[in-house]
């Protein structure tokens, strides 16, 4: 078989993913020869692999930045366009942050497997953003969800960890079957699995099958973005997984789900008959999602669960951005900007609270945040900045993210979107209640750490990640055009 230039060109859209998969395979192979020794269970072991995979991520990111990405390449499965370029950046950004956060936290007996799974996951995300075909989209989504199950299982080995793995796995298999059923109907309508052809075919046809297929696909993806009523697993799985994995779960599947939704909804043009359906569906889902997320986050006392529900609420906001995209037919910028800001601030927050515990499976209560600023200035301030960003206060990236969503909602002048914007504003206010509570706790004078030695705060990489994320949110506010 002769390898032609054209074949190589076809690989350009996916070369970050290929690099990551290759690195992951190597790491997996190395892992086979890493003898689990009884004493290794106590030592934190395997930092080297974490640094290695961080280096791989950075190298690939660098080459993606400097490669000739301005040229558009397309094969039957993948292509580069604006969405895939920014989506790949987003994937690599999230990957770097999560890897940096887990440098000291990988399960010591499975460090290689852990990091290779992370690499596969990020590759899957990069592939999702580059997919132009249902087949590749489905495979990429599975490339995310299967390593996620493995990660959940190897990073926490107690009963809670098992239960979280079970719940995530069973429901994810169930929802991916639903997604596939919808996809099969769409394929039946279009006769092709190419997403462009699919969207065109839906545009030309508004039969019952189109509705059912469309709704099933959205429902299958709604599981990944934790939309109501597909959100139930979120808080259970978050509280039953290790902290870095909770950070991963709140970002990676969400990005994948939203990018896939953009591909299916915001392609060329949706059928005018289908727009009201899609719009109503999305707005209803979004409003229910954000309200439920915020109301439930309000009654939590544990950081991980609170973040699980707040991540549900943020999904609701992003879905509104998607709804605006449907009406406006404009760029997917608002959604991507929100996702990027969300990745930075949420991983920053997780990184910050993960330093407070010696083991990643221990719960962090809200009370543990009391007076953190007076004990550890950097950590306290960085966490405060991340929280400010989650509220959406100007001086942080979160402001631009919410601003973009609101702009998308208000620009078309559609009455439904206007109503949604009002609802989102109310929800943002509810969200501010619990975020401000965290802020007050962080900066209160009574500290939970007075008599506790801060020897547990030795996880330098996680602290650095937290500070880095906080700085990034601030810099983003000053330089909002970097995306």
């Amino acid at each position, binding site marked *: 078989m002769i390898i032609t230039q054209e074949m190589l060109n076809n690989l350009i859209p996916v070369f970050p993913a290929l690099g990551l998969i290759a690195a992951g395979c190597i790491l997996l192979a190395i892992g086979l020869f890493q003898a689990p020794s009884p004493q290794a269970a106590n030592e934190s072991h395997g930092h080297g692999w974490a640094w290695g995979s961080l280096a791989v991520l950075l190298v690939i990111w660098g080459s993606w930045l400097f490669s000739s990405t301005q040229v558009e390449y397309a094969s039957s499965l993948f292509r580069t366009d604006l969405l895939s370029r920014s989506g790949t950046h987003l994937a690599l950004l999230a990957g770097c942050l999560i890897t940096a956060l887990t440098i000291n936290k990988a399960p010591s007996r499975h460090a290689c497997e852990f990091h290779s799974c992370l690499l596969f996951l990020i590759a899957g995300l990069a592939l999702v953003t580059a997919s132009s075909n249902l087949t590749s989209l489905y495979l990429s989504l*599975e490339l995310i969800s299967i390593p996620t199950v493995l990660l959940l299982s190897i990073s926490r080995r107690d009963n809670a960890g098992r239960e979280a793995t079970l719940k995530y*796995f*069973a429901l994810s298999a169930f929802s991916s079957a639903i997604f596939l059923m919808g996809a*099969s109907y769409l394929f039946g309508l279009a006769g092709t699995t190419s997403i462009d052809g699919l969207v065109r075919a839906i545009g030309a046809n508004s039969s019952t099958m189109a509705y059912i297929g469309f709704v099933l696909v959205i429902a299958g993806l709604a599981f990944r973005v934790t939309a109501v009523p597909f959100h139930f697993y979120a808080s259970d799985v978050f509280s039953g997984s290790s902290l870095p994995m909770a950070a991963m779960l709140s970002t990676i599947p969400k990005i994948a789900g939203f990018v896939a939704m953009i591909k299916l909804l915001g392609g060329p043009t949706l059928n005018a008959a289908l727009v009201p359906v899609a719009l109503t569906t999305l707005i209803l889902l979004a409003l229910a999602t954000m309200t439920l997320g915020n109301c439930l986050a309000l009654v939590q006392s544990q950081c991980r669960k609170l973040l699980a529900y707040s991540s549900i609420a943020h999904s609701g906001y992003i879905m509104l951005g998607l709804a605006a995209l449907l009406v406006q037919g404009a760029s997917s910028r608002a959604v991507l900007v929100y996702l990027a800001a969300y990745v930075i601030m949420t991983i920053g927050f997780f990184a910050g609270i993960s330093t407070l515990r010696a083991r990643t499976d221990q719960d962090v209560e809200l009370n543990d945040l009391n007076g953190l600023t007076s004990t550890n200035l950097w950590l306290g301030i960085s966490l405060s900045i991340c929280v400010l960003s989650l509220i959406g206060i100007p001086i942080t990236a979160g402001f631009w993210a919410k601003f973009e969503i609101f702009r998308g909602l208000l620009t078309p002048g559609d009455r439904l979107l206007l109503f949604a914007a009002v609802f989102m504003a109310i929800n943002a206010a509810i969200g501010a209640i619990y975020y401000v509570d965290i802020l007050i706790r962080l900066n209160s004078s009574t500290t939970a750490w007075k008599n506790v030695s801060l020897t547990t705060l030795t996880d330098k990489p996680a602290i650095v990640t937290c500070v880095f994320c906080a700085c990034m949110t601030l810099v983003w506010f000053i330089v909002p055009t970097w995306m």
Partner: protein
Amino acid sequence: MNPATFQTLMLAATLFAIGIVGFLSRKNMILMFLSVELMLAAVAMNFIAFGAHYQNYQGQLFAVLILTIASCEAAIGLALVVSLFKRKATLDIAAWSDLRETDREANVEVPVEQNEPIESYPVLTPAGTDPLVNPVRVSKDGALDTLKA
């Protein structure tokens, strides 16, 4: 649409519905996973039917890929079920409802029958280590113990 395609679609839809109902109503974990497999099989059938209808290979390709992924999921699912069974010695899904929101009692109508978890199971020696003379066992918290003979 020719009758054969229509009938296949109907069959697939029925299978899918049976799968959903099975997933929702079964309490045995293995049966739940089998129901998911049933749903995936229905989807594969759908793809094949449409592929035949359009006379192109894309549907069949998709079906093959679905089967592949389904087998991956089955492998993972069964591994998971084994590891869960080791912990609680029951296949009842309701035994795994400790992670929940409220502090009240578990919302399970029939009390779950739980056998005493078995202390340890023999496992294979992991790759990369010299085979041990004594069998390696997994204790309750998952740590590897070398048992003294």
